């Protein structure tokens, strides 16, 4: 008998203002055998998290299970009483949620939150519960269990918090563990440690596992079987390795093909003529010994609460030639976005020199000439928030044209349409508001806006990280296209090594504000010399030797401890 069997499950959300119902999960069926590992993959909004919660007979406010069965040990838990289902949750089936910070009660210390579960399900006394919790913390490799026990959630690092939550889920040795995107809030290297832990625990305890994620490479790493979901339906299912190597459906193929992979081949080398031109091309951006320290803003609060910040960027130097693309790679907190903000003029460097086309640009935007502001443009990470929600696309695109070139009326409109066409968007969008566009369309509009200025340098700050995998590749392609067409150079900032490998000519690897590795993309990725680069590459390609690298590199331990 399967441990869990889902039959034709349908879950609907009710729109509170119109009252109409929308199916988030639409007729899903599958089985999980004891000890099996199943991955459920899909892009945002495909209903995978709603499904995960429904497996524990739980819906968020507004959601209703409208049909189907969830059989656990042969019993339909959707028909259980509240008390019966409560007995099951945390004891026989447990969930590891997405964001460990918000998922732990902020006003309670973390230890007692795990004790609580043990007290409820195993009737342990206070002392026994505490001892068990500490043992669980050791089992999830928390470095200092005693200390962590007495800390509040926000006092632990991201990786530590996730270990606490996993310890809580494992407290009663459940038969089924559901992990809902448990590593999205973590850095690549921390993510890898947590994944490895999950795998170890699974092997040790024989727990059946359902792993929900948007990342196919993760399921390939951790799961035997995979379900691919799209718009509430299962569109593909099978062995993880098979789906990854030979997807059957178009959607599956597209999903696999779209993954930016570090272990993929280097992109076709650019035509020789271009290459030659590039090598002789003149220097566009020259950054020398750049450092940045967050200065404390003057305020009454600050008087009472002086703070010392460490350097966010520490003595960084690199250069970028006309028409080329330089990748800046690093985890969160590595200083890569700070560098972008300095180049574009949102911040001024604490020390060092930033030169653009031979002239110093060490000043913030209001001291720069309009011409300089025009020549350096930036594209932000989150496309929705980078477009004013109260302006139509037409206004968003024509406003910079007016400011930079004094264009208005039909001329500006025509130019806007032209740029939209470059981004393969129709002119109909001009009358829409940003919220009426999809994420990919929004980002393409943001790119079009940056190119209204005919820039010489374009800063791309994590431009694909907020997008679904299936649209990432297309957006990147369009970006490269317009960049080639206009000859703009690009400073491409990303934590995603696969993406950088695809687009960058040269790459700089940053760690905690320092440059640890630099060179042509081919040399950095093909033959990494620095341990940290190796570590990032191993983590990104989900290689097992990751852990050995991390122990072999004590200098990087700080970065691994989390964000």
């Amino acid at each position, binding site marked *: 008998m399967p441990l869990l069997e889902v039959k034709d499950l349908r879950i609907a959300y009710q729109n509170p*203002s119109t009252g109409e119902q929308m199916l988030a999960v639409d007729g899903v069926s599958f089985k999980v055998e004891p000890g099996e590992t199943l991955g459920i993959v899909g892009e945002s909004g495909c209903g995978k998290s709603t499904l995960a919660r429904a497996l524990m007979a739980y819906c968020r406010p507004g959601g209703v299970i409208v049909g189907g069965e969830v059989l656990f040990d042969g019993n339909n838990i959707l028909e259980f009483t509240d008390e019966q289902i409560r007995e099951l949750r945390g004891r026989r089936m447990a969930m590891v949620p997405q964001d460990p910070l918000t998922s732990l009660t902020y006003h309670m210390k973390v230890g007692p939150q795990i004790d609580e579960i043990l007290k409820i399900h195993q009737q342990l006394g206070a002392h026994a519960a505490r001892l068990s919790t500490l043992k669980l913390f050791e089992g999830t490799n928390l470095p200092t269990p005693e200390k962590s026990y007495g800390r509040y959630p926000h006092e632990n690092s991201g990786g530590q918090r996730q270990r606490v939550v996993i310890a809580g889920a494992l407290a009663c040795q459940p038969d089924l563990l559901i992990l809902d995107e448990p590593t999205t809030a973590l850095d690549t290297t921390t993510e890898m440690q947590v994944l490895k832990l999950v795998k170890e625990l699974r092997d040790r305890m024989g727990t059946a596992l359902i792993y929900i994620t948007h990342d196919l490479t993760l399921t390939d790493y951790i799961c035997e079987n995979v379900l691919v979901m799209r718009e509430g339906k299962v569109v593909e299912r099978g062995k993880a390795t098979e789906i990854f190597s030979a997807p059957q459906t178009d959607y599956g193929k597209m999903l696999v093909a779209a993954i930016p992979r570090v272990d993929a081949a280097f992109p076709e080398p650019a035509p020789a003529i271009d290459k030659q031109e590039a090598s002789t091309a003149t220097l566009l951006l020259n950054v020398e010994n750049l450092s940045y320290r967050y200065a404390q*803003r*003057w305020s009454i609060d600050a008087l009472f609460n002086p703070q010392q910040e460490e350097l966010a960027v520490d003595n960084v130097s690199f250069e970028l030639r006309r028409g080329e693309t330089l990748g800046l790679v690093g985890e969160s907190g590595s200083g890569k976005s700070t560098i972008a903000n300095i180049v574009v003029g*949102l911040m001024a460097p604490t020390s060092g020199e930033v030169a653009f086309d031979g002239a110093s640009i060490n000043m913030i935007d209001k001291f720069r000439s309009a011409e300089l*502001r025009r020549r350096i443009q930036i594209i932000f990470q989150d496309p929705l928030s*980078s477009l004013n929600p109260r302006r139509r696309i037409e206004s968003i695109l024509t406003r910079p044209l007016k400011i930079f070139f004094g264009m208005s009326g039909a001329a500006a409109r025509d130019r806007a349409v032209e740029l939209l066409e470059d981004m393969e968007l129709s002119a109909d969008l001009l009358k829409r508001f940003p919220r009426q566009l999809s994420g990919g369309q929004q980002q393409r509009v943001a790119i079009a*806006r940056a190119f209204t200025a005919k820039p010489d340098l374009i800063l791309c700050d994590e431009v694909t990280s907020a997008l679904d995998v299936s649209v990432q590749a297309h957006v990147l392609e369009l970006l490269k296209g317009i960049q080639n067409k206009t000859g703009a150079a690009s400073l491409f900032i990303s934590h995603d090594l696969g993406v950088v490998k695809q687009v960058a000519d040269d790459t700089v690897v940053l760690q905690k504000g320092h440059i640890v590795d630099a060179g042509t993309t081919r040399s950095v990725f093909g033959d990494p010399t620095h341990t940290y680069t190796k570590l990032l590459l191993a983590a990104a390609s989900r290689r097992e030797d990751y852990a050995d690298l991390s122990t072999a590199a004590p200098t990087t331990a700080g970065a691994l401890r989390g964000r």
Partner: protein
Amino acid sequence: MLVNGKSLGAILTHSPGTTVGVILVSLHLLNALFAPLLIPYGETQLVGQPMLEPGHANFLLGTDVIGRDFLSRLMMGGRTSITVAMVGVLGAVLIGTFFAVSAAYIGGFYDDVIMRIVDTKLSIPGILFVALFVVGFGRSVTVLTIVIGLSYFPGAVRTIRSQAMTQVPLAYVKAARLRGESTLSVIFRELTPNVVEVVVVEFAIRTSSAILIVSALSFLGLGISPPTPDWGLMVSEGVNQIYQAPWLILFPAVFISTLVVGLNFASDGLANALGLDAARGLHGG
């Protein structure tokens, strides 16, 4: 008009409570607008015996303590306080929007100064604040309107600023700054349109609160002065006749209460429809 993809009609009939509120407010506003044309007698004229009971042949609701037509006074009794409240709050909210948005955008010392002024005002209980001005500047409709404006300015700044603070760090504001928009342009062109809902709800909620305050002041003798008819004033004038003529209190009480109940139901519905939380905007003062 479309707000957040909802038509004005849909917003105003959001729930039964909202509909009731909108109807009550409309009736009161129509009455306040057209009362001068409709009233049977001049509201300050002595036209009959004092304290005639309601149902009298010539005076539908009887007469007041000194023989003025009670119905006429009732119908005219909301005009002053509604005007004072609306003008005062409108001024507070409009000027407050500018200070709130600019404080959020410019930040630093400027923000600090504005917020400390706001804290200062919020520390002085509403009626005491008005009393200070009334004792200093005397009581007149102008002083009252300005004081109401001053009273509601800090609260409006606080609520609108916290909404603006959610917008300031967003990339579209950086984008505007980087293409060289002036500070004023960022404030008016980029940020202000994105706090409009909060401003509208602030206006609605604070107007009803201001009407409460104005009538309470009139009741205390610190607000609108006789012989101008005002519901709060009429209640206090009726107190001495509480045994003989309780209706002199009850009628104005019903008028003022239905107006404020209507306003609050309507603004609660408005806030809900716009996805805002009315309770958050109700900070005392």
